């Protein structure tokens, strides 16, 4: 076994050469591409506890169907095959293998979830199948040295936490920060991001408290952070718990000087209004997406493009759901890659173009934020902008912040 492992390590090093620079690929791998179609694979949790994210996949189905109905892409049909993994890594492995080995797709696009993607990442790289724009904010996807065929999409949670920590230090060098985080990869990335910035001072300055998705409420955790004397707060929670947190913090009369909240939970319709818009005044986030229920974007041309598209292709869908905005944007980004391919849809070239995006503007991203990648930069979106809740809308302040990456 040890032999095999060393062998694989050596193998990884050996393939790293040609892979890190897929552009020099020899025999072009045209699996999944014919004269009339390109097969695209995707995996989403359409069932199970994370099925809320299934809407991302549903929009993409409608998106590619729309393109095909309008005559296809450069004469080719985009055959979008999407399967359900129920947010279970073993099932994700099964579905990834089905897509790659049976359906013979050209590449995988926007597969969702850190655990599921962790389970298939090595397989995708061994097979040299592009594994593009993963729908997860984990930091580890930008690793071109070991996994040249895998690339993420959104700014990482860890980067966001670093931005918060820096901001806090500038405001108050001796703040005592309470972190309420979901006890999974998503939540822990925020703890790690803060740790990155505070280093040895972390233990003295920070009180991290976790909750489980099975918890009914986070009341106990909030009360605990308050009684520990925290005067700043970072909430790394999904929308339901974030709304509960904002409300509880306010209700117990706790007024932390700073309250940061993950950009996962900034929906006006699903977080701020349920919590009570007045209760969240002063909460700070770092966003990269336009929030569809935020009045600030009511007349934004970019979001209007999205709204028009939704009315036409998904008239029954819930337009307050920010996942649709996200999904539309990442699909647009994918189209940019295919356009850049310039007719050469070999896996090597698709990977090459996915890592050669420069300043691509996407209607769903906050104005000024663009998508850029290179052979060494596997962080497509690196910028965010801080915003403060004023009771009605997220008021953006300061310039765009480039993440540490």
């Amino acid at each position, binding site marked *: 076994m040890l032999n095999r492992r060393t062998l694989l390590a050596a193998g990884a090093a050996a393939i790293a050469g040609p892979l890190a620079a897929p552009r020099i690929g020899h025999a072009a791998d045209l699996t999944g591409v014919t004269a009339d179609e390109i097969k695209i694979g995707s995996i989403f949790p359409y069932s199970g506890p994370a099925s809320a994210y299934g809407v991302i996949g549903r929009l993409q189905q409608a998106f590619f169907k729309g393109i095909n109905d309008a005559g296809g892409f450069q004469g080719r049909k985009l055959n979008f095959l999407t399967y359900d993994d129920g947010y*279970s890594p073993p099932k994700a492995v*099964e579905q990834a293998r089905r897509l790659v080995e049976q359906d013979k797709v050209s590449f995988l696009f926007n597969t969702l979830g850190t655990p599921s993607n962790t*389970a298939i990442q090595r397989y995708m790289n061994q097979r040299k199948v592009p594994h593009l724009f993963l729908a997860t904010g984990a930091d580890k996807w930008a690793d071109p040295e070991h996994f040249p065929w895998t690339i993420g999409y959104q700014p990482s949670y860890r980067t966001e936490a670093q931005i918060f920590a820096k901001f806090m230090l500038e405001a108050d060098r001796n703040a005592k920060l309470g972190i309420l985080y979901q006890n999974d990869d998503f939540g822990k990335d925020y703890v790690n991001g803060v740790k990155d910035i505070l280093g040895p001072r972390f233990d003295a300055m920070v009180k991290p408290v976790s909750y489980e998705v099975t918890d009914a409420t986070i009341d106990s955790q909030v009360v605990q952070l308050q009684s520990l004397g925290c005067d700043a707060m970072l909430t790394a929670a999904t929308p339901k718990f974030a709304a509960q947190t904002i409300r509880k913090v306010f209700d117990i009369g706790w007024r932390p000087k700073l309250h940061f909240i993950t950009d996962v939970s900034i929906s006006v319709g699903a977080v701020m209004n349920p919590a009570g818009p007045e209760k969240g005044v002063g909460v700070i986030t770092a966003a990269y997406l336009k929030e569809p229920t935020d009045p600030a974007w009511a007349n934004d041309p970019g979001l209007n493009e999205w709204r028009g598209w939704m009315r036409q292709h998904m008239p029954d869908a819930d337009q307050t759901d920010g996942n649709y905005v996200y999904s539309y944007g990442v699909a647009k980004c994918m189209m940019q890659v295919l356009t850049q391919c310039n007719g050469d849809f070999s896996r090597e070239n698709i990977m090459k173009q996915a890592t050669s995006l420069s300043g691509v503007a996407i209607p769903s991203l906050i104005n000024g934020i663009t998508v850029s990648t290179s052979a060494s930069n596997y962080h497509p979106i690196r910028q965010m902008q801080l915003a403060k809740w004023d009771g009605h809308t997220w008021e953006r302040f300061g310039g765009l912040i480039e993440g540490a990456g």
Partner: protein
Amino acid sequence: MASETTTPTVLASARPARPALRYAGLLWAIGIALLLPLFTAESYRLFQLTLAAIYAIAILGLNLVTGYNGQISLGHGAFYAVGAYVAAIMMDKFGLPYWSTLPSAAVVCGLVGYGIGFPALRLGGLYLALTTFSLAVAVPQILKYKGIEEWTGGVQGVLVFKPDAPFGLPLSNDQYLYLLTVAIALGVFLLARNLMASRIGRAIMAIRDHGLAAEAMGMDAARLKTSTFAVSAGITGLAGALSAIAVEFVSPDSFQVALSITLFVGMVVGGVASIIGPAFGGLFVVFVPNLAEEVSKAAPGVIYGIILIAFLFVLPGGVAGLLRRLAARLHR
């Protein structure tokens, strides 16, 4: 390999009262059916079949304690998880060979099961069902606990590698793993079959059907119940270890409550208190969700649920119940 030679002889000898010839043909057919995918199926299909065989083993374990012994467990996913982690940790942290992890996982899970078996003695039916159910909920959270993160990899889990075929056999990883799993499954199924046909097996069922009477007959019901729990957990843990090797990855998210529910569904669908039933249960839980998805992308869960309910309406006794009825008709 093993399947070819062991199937007919051992199974046939286990049923000496039956006319051997009639069954020999059937067993050859089963043997060939098991080997056929090796040469015909794509490696992805082989992988699915491997998963089905792994689930079948796990469901068999559950069936022993719940179906045969009447101790309802809604938390067997917990043992599956422990088995998987034992295998993953042994391979990743200690560099031990994959084959050594299988017996270890079975033993560790057997011990855990033995431990759970004691409180289970005092908890009747429903209380036991709900307690084991909460065990299934708690295990993923325990796996994430920071005190053992160094071993379990916390939320990130542990990656392992599939073994190559030994002795230079001209088989791919998937083919070898399929053979290995099917061979182990056959072995476990035969053992379980012989166990349940033995005096101990009858005692295990007697405890389910007439608890007090069994005790009055001088059986040590308590010991038998805890032992059954241990054996059951050990078998399910073995399946868990195999799953870690086949999937090459373990993480807390791989073993959510849904897994325990899946095993239970497999047991009911295959047939409660049946040896062959779990094999069908394994196939059901692997292939029917995909089928449901073909029907409706919008809500595959709804379709899967409807299929499950409809299936139980038509076959309340599961596939094994149907087979029993067919066999009875043939014999008449």
